[in-house]
């Protein structure tokens, strides 16, 4: 049973997932060329606004969180010990 090879044990399957993601990204941002989103605020109308904002937001989130670790991270038993 342990010898069974599962779907993501094969690197090519992981690569396929990543390529599929890239394809979906291109398709959805490409849709902005043909589909005119109706908007409430002018920022929304910028080409690819949601896509770019989503990408940048996540990268910023992770990079800031990584830096925050330097400030916030303590040993796992931090509160269980006396000073």
């Amino acid at each position, binding site marked *: 049973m342990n010898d*069974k090879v599962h779907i993501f044990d094969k690197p090519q399957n992981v690569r396929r997932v990543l390529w599929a993601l890239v394809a979906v990204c291109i398709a*959805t941002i490409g849709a902005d060329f043909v589909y005119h989103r109706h908007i409430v605020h002018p920022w929304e109308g910028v080409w690819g606004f949601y896509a770019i904002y*989503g990408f940048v937001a996540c990268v910023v*989130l992770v990079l800031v*969180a990584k830096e925050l670790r330097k400030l916030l991270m303590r040993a796992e038993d931090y509160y269980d010990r006396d000073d």
Partner: protein
Amino acid sequence: MIELPPFVLFYLAALAAAVLPRRARQVVMLAVPLVGGLALMNLAPDLLLRVAFMDLHLEPLRVDKLSMLFGILFHIGAFIGIVFSLHVDDRSQHVAALLYAGSAIGAVFAGDLLTLFLFWEILALTSAFLIFANRTDRAWGAGMRYLVIQVLSGVLLLAGALMLYRHSGSLAFDHIGLNGAGSFLIFIAFGIKCAFPLLHNWLTDAYPEATPTGTVFLSAFTTKVAVYALARGFAGTEALVYIGATMTCFPIFYAVIENDLRRVLAYSMINQIGFMVVGIGLGTALAMNGAIAHAFNDVIFKGLLMMSMGAVLHMTGRINGSDLGGLYKSMPVTAGLCIVGAASISAFPLFSGFVSKSMVMVAVLEEGHPGVWLALLFASAGVFHHAGIKIPFFAFFSHDSGIRTTEPPLNMLAAMGLAAVLCIFIGCYPWALYELLPFSTGYAPFDGSHILAQIQLLVFSAAAFAWLKVSGIYPPELRSTNIDAEWLYRRLAPRWVRRCTQGLTAVSDTLGETTQNASRVVMRSVVRHYGPEGTLARSWPTGSMVLWVAVLLAASLILYYL
């Protein structure tokens, strides 16, 4: 037909569960939310039950659209939680869970502040037992901190209610609004239970320490009662818009670096409540509908995520991202159900989060808060990142931890399956939920612009995660504690108390030493004069006394002659 407040059924069932043997107890527990739900449907709309208690007019049962929606929600939440915990053979947990669910239902049907206060406190007390039930030292400590903070919230609520009563002569629980000290105390009381920033750590401290099944109940009731109370009492309070926006943003940073996956979900819960708080703060029909609908959906999809992590903890005994991975191989069904919850919380179109969160987003822009809107959009991308991807990825995929287990017990799978079906059903047919909402706005969820925008936001967030992960920039899961506002009362305050007591000890030591020295000096002089060798203790020869007598006699004779 006698109109019984819906909580009575749960309290009676708790009494029964306290004495019945296991099988009978399971039957009673399953029946309660079903029977209660049917009874709920038969309650007359706009029913008001009044009771006079001494000079007070109490309303233990008030039915309107708002309380009814939360009543239905809590029956669903209770049913899912009960099914999920059916295999547990621990009477105290079952009794506590029934009392807890009943109190939540009692609280949302309470028409006056005193009744609300009573349920508010029972809610705190009974839920603490779901934390204690883990029977570890950590759970004990977290449970005590939880209880102290929750009871404090209740005390503030009571104090505020009494101040309002003095002022207006009424205890009715309607719109309160921020005006005056009494209303401010109530606002803070609700805020504590709602996990406002800096008042939020009881949630991230206690929920991950509860039992795998207990956390599912906890995540359903306490904070949603608070959201209900805010919606009832403080709709349209502008401060809530900014408080809510803060709540959506700051927890996601913690969620990214947190290792305990149930704690990640606890932070993500604050983030979701933030969206509701923003909606309540705006107070328009669309925003209120969005906030309340999101509370409804959150109970189910957050419950589903908590259940999937509970199932992982139950089967493997582990919950840290650093210890898990590769579980899709042995728990494929659980993994699939977890992904449904993840898609729902991330607000993928056709999943439940989408049809409620988008209402709040639209309302924020329409009311002219573009800054808040950007913050919420950031939080939306962030929630997909940490709850939508991180939770399923680190538990079920990522590197293979080597753990081989099996799917959880059937009742756990059934509860998760039920929640997943509801997530998809509401996501595809939101009108079933919209009909229950207090306002009719004619909101159309499936609008091409919204769908495209949301999909773009999500797939590019996913792309960011994939890129960061592949390039090795993504921070690894590390065994750690991340300090948060709780540091103030878990570290700083105890340290100050210790320092103060140490200071006092030093003072008392010095005082003691000085008195000791002083008394030693006195004693020495006493010993010198009165001791065995002392001048005043010397024995005198009879001769010298005769001599001195003669001297005295001579002196008096001389004085006499003078």
